[in-house]
């Protein structure tokens, strides 16, 4: 019988302990790799949310705050900015195009984005991909609305359905714009970005919704303005929440940024989205490190568990070792049997761990994607994965030296008849 066969048989002789040890290693492997997967997936999906935009401009607050509400629809703007400022910078000689966005309303928990036609033409995500329509077309009339993939799927909307928007954001809104219903004219293809969860209307429509509102309160009975009358009104938008800027030449980006940040007519702030995202990661990096440390601890605990179980079986196995020695096995052989046992335990733990992770990914990926907007890359292991798996293997091998050394020494002292 070869070494490996002996090790395998001896493991199979203690199925329960072997199974538990393998399980604990498998869990720690899938935890470690899973956290790595979520971490890189989150980064990737954040990074791919907006591309091809040089600057994002909003009211002066924190750069991260501006990035979060304008791109990721997380949190709210402290202030809006005037439409006039947007127009001035849209016409700026160094600006190629600008997309305005206006936030503040919602539809059944989905954010309403007021914007213009440029949004559908210019907005890019995941490198160079543009927004495409699954059905329908961009909005054209005042009460037209274009919805993202998640909105249409979850609420089972189709083109030409009529919907009502609500004032404010949040799942439950107490103030509906029920007097001015919208018609769905387009449904966007899935992008894996917050666009999927957005309801898009024109800036003029945002204005129209609130045309009869006074001091932020709904119109008093009798003061409402009907949709028909609204259509005839001058609906020049007064403000926007933020706007995306693409410059004719990247070289001028810092100059334009300085110009916007020092703009005297209004307190504006321009951020470089990529740079701000990196700053954000630096802050979040601490949390990521904490998660990593926790999963390393889990791994250490599972290795300690393995060593303990091997050590505790050693006294049961004194006879086994003694028999091996009596039929001519060398001391080295006893040592190697234990090392190989750990190898088998670790390798099967790693394999089971990886398969559990992938199974979990396959099963839960759609949920993660739709609920959290987290797109996780599936089948490509990263360099870090190899580093983790490698260090798990080496770590447990090193730890297994302890029981192996004990067995080595015991086999010297013990005779065939173990005195206990």
């Amino acid at each position, binding site marked *: 019988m070869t070494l490996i066969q002996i090790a395998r048989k001896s493991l199979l002789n203690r199925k329960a302990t072997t199974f538990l040890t393998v399980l604990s290693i498998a869990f720690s492997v899938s935890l470690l790799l899973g956290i790595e997967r979520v971490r890189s997936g989150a980064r990737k999906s954040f990074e791919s949310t907006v591309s091809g935009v040089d600057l994002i401009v909003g009211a002066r607050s924190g750069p991260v705050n501006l990035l979060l509400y304008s791109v990721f629809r997380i949190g709210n703007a402290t202030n809006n900015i005037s439409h006039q400022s947007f127009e001035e910078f849209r016409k700026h000689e160094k600006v190629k195009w600008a997309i305005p966005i206006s936030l503040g309303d919602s539809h059944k928990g989905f954010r309403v984005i007021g914007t213009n036609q440029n949004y559908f033409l210019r907005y890019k995500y995941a490198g160079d991909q543009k927004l495409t329509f699954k059905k329908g077309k961009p909005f054209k009339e005042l009460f037209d609305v274009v919805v993202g993939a998640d909105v249409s799927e979850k609420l089972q909307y189709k083109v030409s359905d009529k919907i009502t928007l609500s004032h404010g954001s949040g799942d439950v809104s107490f103030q509906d714009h029920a007097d001015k219903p919208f018609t769905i004219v387009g449904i966007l293809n899935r992008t894996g970005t917050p666009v999927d969860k957005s309801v898009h209307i024109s800036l003029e429509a945002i204005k129209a919704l609130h045309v009869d509102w006074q001091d932020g309160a709904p119109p008093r009975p009798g003061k409402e303005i009907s949709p028909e009358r609204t259509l005839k009104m001058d609906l020049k938008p007064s403000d926007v929440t933020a706007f995306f800027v693409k410059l004719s030449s990247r*070289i001028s*980006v810092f100059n334009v940024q300085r110009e916007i940040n020092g703009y005297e007519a209004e307190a504006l702030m321009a951020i470089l989205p*990529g740079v701000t995202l*990196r700053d954000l990661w630096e802050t979040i990096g601490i949390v990521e490190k904490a998660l990593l440390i926790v999963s390393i601890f889990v791994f250490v605990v599972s290795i300690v568990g393995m060593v303990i179980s091997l050590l505790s079986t050693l006294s049961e196995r004194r006879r086994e070792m003694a028999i091996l020695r009596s039929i001519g096995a060398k001391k080295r052989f006893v040592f190697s049997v234990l090392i190989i046992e750990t190898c088998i335990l670790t390798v099967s733990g790693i394999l089971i761990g990886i398969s559990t992770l992938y199974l979990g990914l396959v099963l839960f990926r759609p949920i993660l994607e739709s609920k959290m907007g987290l797109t996780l890359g599936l089948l490509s292991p990263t360099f870090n994965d190899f580093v983790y798996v490698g260090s798990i293997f080496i770590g447990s091998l090193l730890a297994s030296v302890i029981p192996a050394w004990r067995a080595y020494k015991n086999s010297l002292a013990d005779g065939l008849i173990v005195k206990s």
Partner: protein
Amino acid sequence: MKQIVVIFLCLFATTIQSKEGHHKKRHHKAHEHGSGKLNLATDGNKLVIKIEAPANDIVGFEHKPSTKEQRNKINSAIKFLKVASSNLQLPRASGCKPEGSSKIKAKMAEGEHEEGHEEEGHHKDEEHSEFHISYTFTCSNIESLNYVKVLSFKKFKGMKKLKAQGVTKTGQFSKTLNSKSPQFDLRK
């Protein structure tokens, strides 16, 4: 008639005044000793790198040079910074060549500048003493430009860090450079 003219003049004067008051700049730039800025942008085959650093970081004082030694210090700093390759190291494969001469502006504020006092309110013109350096390169293979290394940390001991921001075709980058990690990576 006279009274009307006087009233008119008064009105006019107040409007001018209020206009002036309105337009007075109240923006203040940050100025932190030991910390400068590096901005990098590419477009087509052009690369522009701008560095702004407090004069204190480069020459060790922030006032008009009063002695010969101080004047020499400024001049030698300018001489060093003028040669792009002595300050910046770019990957050879990118084939970036300095275009024209580098622009260097050493703004030295008026008045004595004592060490250890607070920055605000001491400069009459609200200008901080700073070095503004601008390099322009033309690159034959800009795709290979994957890092920029700043060499001046060694030369100027007062220069502790540079907040670097970069915008290239690949994306946007940021990093705080210092003498231990002077390389600004431009890869994802």
